[in-house]
């Protein structure tokens, strides 16, 4: 079996090889399609990550408060979004919610997928944040309160600055997971990498070449995120903690 990577220079519409391997606006090549699909993958992943970090941190914090109702809300949130398969959640956001709540029909489908992936991941992040806060000595909270801080102030100035730095390593692996999980968006026809892989494979029958390129792009994206997070980790490390503080 021989590999024929020329397939990427083919025009999608014409099927003929394009001169610069990139094609024109009316006849883009598979390479151009793949690069735009990569953009969609990164867009879905990064926007979902913002949603996930926001909701995940809030819900994780709620689960550590002394207020029972707030703890319940945080726990219910986590269990709800953790115990339904991501693909099913994507279908619920993309297909079901706009039918049930008609005002959601104006929201682009892309954003609905972002919400699905973001909320799904927020449940995992909430777990990490909760564990991070609970890993702090109990005296920290008492000390904050004893200093006359209100509970929100204790979180803002005492607990979170420590806890958020502690949870960066597990959050790194969640950020890499979100790139991988964004592949589920293929099911609702978001033009991201997996969708590209399936369609281009069908059109060209050059599955191995196309899957290989797509897999490498996933590798590259996850690796880049990993390096960025490692850098951040180094900058924000808590001195004196295991994990190599200075």
């Amino acid at each position: 079996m021989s590999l024929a990577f020329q397939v990427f220079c083919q025009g999608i519409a014409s099927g003929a090889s394009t001169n610069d391997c990139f094609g024109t606006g009316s006849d883009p090549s598979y390479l151009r399609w793949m690069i735009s699909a990569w953009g969609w993958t990164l867009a879905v992943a990064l926007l979902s990550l913002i949603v996930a970090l926001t909701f995940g941190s809030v819900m994780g914090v709620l689960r550590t408060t002394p207020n029972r109702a707030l703890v319940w809300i945080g726990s219910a949130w986590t269990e709800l979004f953790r115990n339904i398969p991501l693909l099913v959640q994507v279908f619920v956001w993309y297909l079901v919610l706009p039918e049930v709540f008609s005002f959601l029909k104006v929201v682009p489908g892309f954003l609905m997928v972002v919400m699905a992936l973001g909320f799904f991941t927020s449940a995992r992040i909430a777990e990490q944040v909760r564990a991070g806060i609970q890993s702090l000595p109990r005296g920290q909270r008492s000390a904050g309160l004893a200093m006359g801080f209100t509970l929100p102030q204790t979180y803002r100035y005492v607990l979170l600055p420590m806890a958020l730095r502690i949870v960066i390593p597990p959050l790194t692996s969640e950020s890499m997971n979100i790139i991988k999980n964004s592949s589920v968006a293929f099911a609702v026809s978001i033009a991201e990498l997996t969708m590209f892989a399936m369609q281009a494979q069908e059109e060209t029958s050059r599955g191995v070449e196309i899957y290989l390129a797509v897999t490498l792009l996933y590798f590259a994206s996850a690796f880049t995120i990993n390096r960025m997070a490692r850098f951040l980790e180094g900058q924000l490390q808590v001195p004196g903690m295991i994990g190599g503080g200075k």
Partner: protein
Amino acid sequence: MELDFSFFDGAAISSFIAKGMLFSVQLTLMSMVGGVVLGTLLALMRLSGRSWLAVPAAAYINTMRSVPLVMMILWFFLLIPLVLGRPMGAELSAIVTFTLFEAAYYSEIMRAGIQSLPRGQIFAGHAMGMTYLQTMRFVVLPQAFRNMLPVLLTQTIVLFQDTSLVYAIGAYDLLKGFEVLGKNFNRPIESYLVAALIYFAICLSLSMLVKRLQARIAIIR
């Protein structure tokens, strides 16, 4: 929009859902057993201290863990027929994929379980005259399994959720059952809602069971 769930009755379950459920459970159990066995072997290779065993195992595990599961499902569905020279059903292809894919994740759990044991356990085994494999078989693995059982089961719940991804190659699993049901009765919205509810009920009760198990089997040291 009015939601109408009246189509969801015993007949719907027996003719659409049961078949999918059966496959999802079968896929979960088979890849759990296969994945744990293969994963344990990979973990032992990785910890063996011999680089000709450790390096390939680490490479395999890291590759599997860096590729989205959907891509892996597509890869195997494409490659298995090329290698075998004849097409393979989506269901069988899914079982092979999940076993090989989950092995990477289970092996990381087993590795953590083995590494969490005191080093003296291995020395004790050797001192008793056992070989490396005997030490693993009779001393280390039984303890690692017990310590890691809750984590292994939690991973299996994740695996059960992930089986829905066979959607990519059109295998008939639980989710597919709901999709076909929704199409047949022209009630896709309600069908997906019931699907979400059922997955939720199954996974929540399983994870509560795992929590109880965890409390019961924890070894007090």
